[in-house]
């Protein structure tokens, strides 16, 4: 059975869905952030797959995946800083207590 583009896309989709499930179900703020990072990893796998199978010369998918990695790291840093500021008030990691966000 030859491995095609759709196999990799399926893995990316499953990772994305696991991330969505985790971000919906998790009660802990840091767990929500981890689930979001898993979603981003699934999206990156899709980009790199398209870069490999559809852009043989230009590597567009690879470059977009690079940007996405950078933006993901920035987003995490900002989210953690907001969490740090909120945590000093709330003294809790439970997402139910962060409704005012």
């Amino acid at each position, binding site marked *: 059975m030859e491995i095609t583009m759709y196999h990799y896309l399926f893995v990316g989709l*499953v*990772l994305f869905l696991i991330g969505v499930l*985790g971000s919906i179900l998790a009660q802990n703020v840091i767990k929500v952030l981890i*689930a979001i990072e898993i979603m981003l*990893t699934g999206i990156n796998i899709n980009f790199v797959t398209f*870069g*490999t199978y559809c852009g043989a010369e230009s*590597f567009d998918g690879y470059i977009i995946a690079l940007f996405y*990695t950078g933006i993901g790291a920035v987003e995490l840093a900002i989210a953690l800083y907001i969490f740090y500021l909120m945590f000093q008030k709330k003294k809790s*990691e439970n997402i139910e207590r962060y409704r005012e966000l």
Partner: protein
Amino acid sequence: MINNPVIFYISAALIIFFALFSVFSKKIINSLLWSVLVFFTAAVIFYVLGSEYNAIIQAAIYGIAVPVLLGISIMFSAGKDDSGKGFAINFFAIIFAVVFTLFFIDAVVISLMKQPESFILQELPKVNFYDVISSFVKGLFINYVWAFELMGLLLTVTIAGIAVFKRKGA
């Protein structure tokens, strides 16, 4: 690109398992450790797909830098986790894990039956460094130069913003 079904199915099964464990772990530190494995396995998948640069950056940023940030956050909030919910290994979880594992073993066995030579790594990664580097440079500095500049601006604003907030907080 390494077009080998065995490597693909094993890495795909591992990344899905690790992601499930990461999402459904009860302790937050376990969740973080499983997520590190997810990020490193994603780097392996990038390497298998033929993108060495993305693999290295994935391993460096998501495998090392992001877990350090998350680990520090867990450290300063240690003991305050009152979420109370998590993953408990029950009958359905075991059934799901067994079915999932059997599915992937079945996929590997079918691949080996149809393509017996795939067990031996025959296709070594072939990298034409000149082409890859020139394509990356062309992409970053010509085709997507605005996105590249915007990305740099975003990082600068982030660092400056954190410094300003820190000074205000102090």
